């Protein structure tokens, strides 16, 4: 048992993070063409709406919720000191989880039943969808049967995750956790591990900078005006377009 715990909660996170970092950087630099959300809305748009929208928004809420609880656990504990607020937090996160769960199932059905979508489905898509379903299911199970996860996540799991990042993993707390919750964490590590090999990379390039960029964009391969200006050093290189 100890060996298993050591592997899943000490070795796996490091493997996952290293593969994630190297893999995504490698992919971004050398296989940029593969960096895409690979949207299939063009082939089928109606069923996609009912799956994609709840899935993505729900996932965003859950992702930032987890991130928040990990980075500033104190604030969550403080917030939860009032039972009504705790209930509100738990229920709203659970609704988000249901959205993700239902959305995923609809997406999965669409992927398997729609003729056209089947043509743009890879084995990796299926794998990742099942993995996500697994993670969300174990997460929901934990939320229902091991109550007030938002509180104990902040006080138990955040320290563990932080210890992982501090390179001195402290796993006694997670080792004592129920199996469903352990599976949830393991699923999450697997997801991180697999990210660079799947379409999931698109969440890394969510185009937030669009908000502050001007609408129009003109690029000179070779800006003669700039090059000829005496202030420009002669060694100036062209901007990279491709």
């Amino acid at each position: 048992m100890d060996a298993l715990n050591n592997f899943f909660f000490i070795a796996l996170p490091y493997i996952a993070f290293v593969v994630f970092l190297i893999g995504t950087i490698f992919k971004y630099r050398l296989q940029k063409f593969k960096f895409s959300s690979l949207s299939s809305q063009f082939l089928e748009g109606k069923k996609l709406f009912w799956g994609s929208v709840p899935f993505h928004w729900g996932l965003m809420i859950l992702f930032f919720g987890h991130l928040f609880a990990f980075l500033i656990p104190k604030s969550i504990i403080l917030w939860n000191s009032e039972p009504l607020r705790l209930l509100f937090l738990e229920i709203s996160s659970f609704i988000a989880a249901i959205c993700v769960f239902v959305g995923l199932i609809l997406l999965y059905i669409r992927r398997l039943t729609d003729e056209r979508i089947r043509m743009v489905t890879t084995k990796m898509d299926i794998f990742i969808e099942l993995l996500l379903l697994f993670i969300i299911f174990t997460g929901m199970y934990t939320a229902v049967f091991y109550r007030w996860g938002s509180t104990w996540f902040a006080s138990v799991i955040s320290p563990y995750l932080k210890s992982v990042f501090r390179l001195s993993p402290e796993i006694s707390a997670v080792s004592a956790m129920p199996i469903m919750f352990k599976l949830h964490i393991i699923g999450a590590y697997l997801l991180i591990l697999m990210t660079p090999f799947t379409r999931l990379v698109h969440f890394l390039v969510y185009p937030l900078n669009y908000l502050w960029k001007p609408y129009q964009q003109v690029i000179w391969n070779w800006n003669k005006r700039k090059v000829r200006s005496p202030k420009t050093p002669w060694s100036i290189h062209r901007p990279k377009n491709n």
Partner: protein
Amino acid sequence: MDVRSQISMVFHLDKCIGCHTCSIACKNIWTDRKGAEYMWWNNVETKPGTGYPTKWEDQEIYKGGWEKNMGKIRLKGAGKAKGLLNIFHNPHLPVIDDYYEPFTYKYLNLIESPEEDTQVTARPVSMITGKPIDIKMGPNWDDDLSGTPDYARNDPNFKNLSAGEQEAMFQLERMAMFYLPRICNHCLNPACVGSCPSRAIYKRGEDGVVLINQNVCRAWRMCVTACPYKKSYYNWGTGKSEKCILCYPRLESGQAPACMHSCVGRIRYLGVMLYDASQIEAVANSDDEDLIKRQMDMILDPFDPKVIASAKKNGIADSTLKAAQDSPTYKFVKEWGMALPLHPEFRTMPMLFYVPPLLPVMATLSNNDVESQKDTLNPISKFWERATKYDASMDNIFGTVDDARFPLKYLANLFSNGDEELIKITLKKLMAVRLHRRDVTVGDLSKEMVAESLKEVGLDTEMADAIYYLTSLAKFDDRFVIPAAHREQAIEMTEFTGDRKGDAGFGFTEHPARGL
């Protein structure tokens, strides 16, 4: 003044024979690939008709282009807020059925089938799923179908034509149509660029070609919605959007784009135009009535010393300036004022201009005065002999433009944002040149009448001859004036030659840097 150069195009619609050679040339070079089968970067539509994708001009459906709201323009169906909020599901994205599902036939069946009692057939199969399909639509599905209820009558440009006017267009004897070849307009205020959240689309500074960087595109597919001309296409195979690249690799080696090179009717012209980039925003925001005029004003005179000086300051090469002075598009658009942009009300400021067609408009003379012509009615083929000469009696040739069989309003909806006067004057110019040439070659017209008609539209005989030359006789090099920067210096568009000095010639793709 911030002078930039732009490769612009003029299509002379009277000359288009609707042969689709252009579309095929483009398809063969660029879009004959998986995921791109349905794309026609160049397509030719029959007008009136619904076009490709179906009813693309109806922005209530597709939400393309810019719209003016409280004095400022914004994207109708995309933009910062809408784009990012709709990123998981874009409600205005056309789906493949709006274009057509690409298909092929099982030709091998015809050869490999064993002997049977029944005739072997080559069934159509979808090029997406590979399964047999019922073909509902295909490329140019509404080709030449003017007058049909499903296509011509659903043309969005009929929006403000009365029922009577529409009916008149569809009477069997009067029915007319023309062809509208379309490519990406390489706009000055491109909606596709504005809508791209990952900033993958850009306008090339050197020549204004609008391109999508395939390495940066992330399939957010906002450009497909935003381009009001539906000239940005989503490749469902690669998960990247693609569009017409104006054959820039050909341009850079001094060749005309494939569609233009192969054009059978020789309707296409391509050349440099200089424009003042500092005005783009103001012009795009101008009032509906002024849009065309202000876009035309933005295009600068390449002979003006002031323009030349500031162009040089911006690093525009002398050879490009020379190309701008010889540019056939500058002549059609600015000097002669004969070419208009397609749907200027979308406010993208297209740089592809059309000489509107005169022929479908003129051919109605026979409808005048039926009674007095009765004696010339050919009893067998039932046409009025005198009236078949389409220049007719000449007395009030311009009068006929108004009761043309194509209501001017229809053409105005296409090319001038509803301004019929603008269409009328353009058509009158076309007619005046014809009258002048008839006077020169046949000489059966009254000299005063010809002189009068030229004067009315502000042309002189020299100009009329020049128009005639460029329209009918122009050689390849007159129709396509491609600046030298695109030939011997083309390498500089993408590489700093200094960087490459001393590199090993052929064979190496890696910079020969010292190993560590």
